[in-house]
């Protein structure tokens, strides 16, 4: 397990050295995108309006505040459940050249294959730690697709040493949360059986 600091745009070489369980901190452009952004790009075939080649997509729906001069400030921004983007993520990576996915929880086999094919990683930011994340954003440089509403829009954020991001899917196809789920499933059987024996309340 190693810790890296990366500056975006990142190269294939940067990504290839990352293994599941590594912790990274990233500097540069991070763009938010959740269900609707993925739907537009993948299902509706619209071009993603921001160039995120070598950069990061953040599964997050932030709370933003508009300043008097019309610019925006991040109040609170933390990761949302990545699994919701599973059906569209791989194609999204292929279409945009994005290299780092940030979210929470695991993603499935399609995204894992997408990370291999596109030399990308999925990473986990600690869930619910949205003020820490907001404080690591130095500037909001713009917003696209605001018609989707505040949480769903693509917010273009400049961040410094954004993290800790735990690598959960690497470009070789290792999947940390999947491995954990296998372990949890193994442990579950005997525990349920033991508890069940104590609960025969029916007369």
């Amino acid at each position, binding site marked *: 397990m190693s810790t890296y600091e990366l500056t975006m745009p990142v190269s294939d070489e940067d990504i290839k050295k990352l293994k599941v369980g590594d912790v990274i901190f990233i500097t540069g452009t991070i763009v938010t995108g959740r269900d609707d952004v993925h739907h537009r790009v993948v299902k509706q075939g619209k071009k993603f309006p921001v160039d995120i080649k070598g950069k990061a997509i953040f599964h997050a729906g932030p709370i933003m505040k508009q300043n008097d001069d019309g610019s925006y400030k991040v109040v609170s921004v933390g990761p949302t459940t990545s699994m919701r983007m599973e059906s569209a993520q791989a194609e999204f990576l292929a279409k945009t050249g994005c290299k780092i996915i940030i979210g929470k929880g695991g993603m499935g086999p399609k995204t894992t294959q997408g990370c291999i094919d596109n030399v990308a990683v999925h990473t986990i930011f600690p*869930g619910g730690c949205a003020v820490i994340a907001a404080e690591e954003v130095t500037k909001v440089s713009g917003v696209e697709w605001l018609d989707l509403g505040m949480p769903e829009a693509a917010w273009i954020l400049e961040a410094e040493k954004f993290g800790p991001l735990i690598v959960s899917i690497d470009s070789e196809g290792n999947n940390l949360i999947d491995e954990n789920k296998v372990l*949890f499933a193994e442990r579950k059987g005997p525990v349920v059986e033991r508890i069940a024996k104590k609960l025969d309340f029916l007369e």
Partner: protein
Amino acid sequence: MDKREELTGLLSSFICHASSHLPDDVVARLKQMKEVENEGFAATIYDAMFENLKLADELKRPSCQDTGVIQFFVKVGTKFPYMDELADILKDAVLKATKEAPLRHNAVEVFDEKNTGNNTGYRIPWIDWDLVPGRDDIEVYLYMAGGGCSLPGFAKVLMPLEGYEGVVKAVFDQMTTYGVNACPPCLVGIGIAGSAEVAAKLSKKALLRPVGSHNPNPRAAMMEEEIEKGLNEIGLGPGGLRGKLSVMGVNIEQAARHPATIAVGMNTACWAHRRAGIRIGSDLSYEFFTHKGVTL
């Protein structure tokens, strides 16, 4: 200021405070868990959680960006003087808090598929009423139902021969899969009843009970303890990244069932369990009993 405005302002401050501060019982349990989770990713994540709570307090910001769909569970005395206006007042308080906290816009009208942009919408805020005869005060519970922590929720009706065992199995299946995404350590709420909607509603009410409290029925209390212990043995850890523990606790609520059905409902509250409770008298004096010592 008229009384209606005063009550709206009080409830709005109540919502704002709850968006950036967890209730006392949750903070106390998380502190205990942090002591145990002292290795690997688990330690890193617990450090981040407490740092985040500190920042949220200092900067007066919602501690999690997902401030949820706003739900109220209200016990209203039938002699409360503002009973007629209370539903409107609760809605106004949400509108006000949305601007002041500020809260994220989380009400999407079904079928129109448009975010209303102010956290109110058709039947939202969701208000659940319990009438209390003869009293002139109200008890308002607020619950911010986030997306991630609502996702593991389910209700289904089992056949009696599947027994309480079926309930346990369903809970463990859900917690070891969907539960991983719900920002664990979660509080698990379980409802057991005769039909799906009763079980579902009770599972949410179970989440309003303090962490560490027990069902007064000894069998139910035993079941809470066993499930909690069992889930902890699985070691989901914070964020599903593995650890020595899994959950903050397990609360069960029940209603008498039909002889031919055992319905189970489950809801999870994430570690950022933003539940808040306030008692408001007819003179609008209040007791913010989930967050002791706080003046609104």
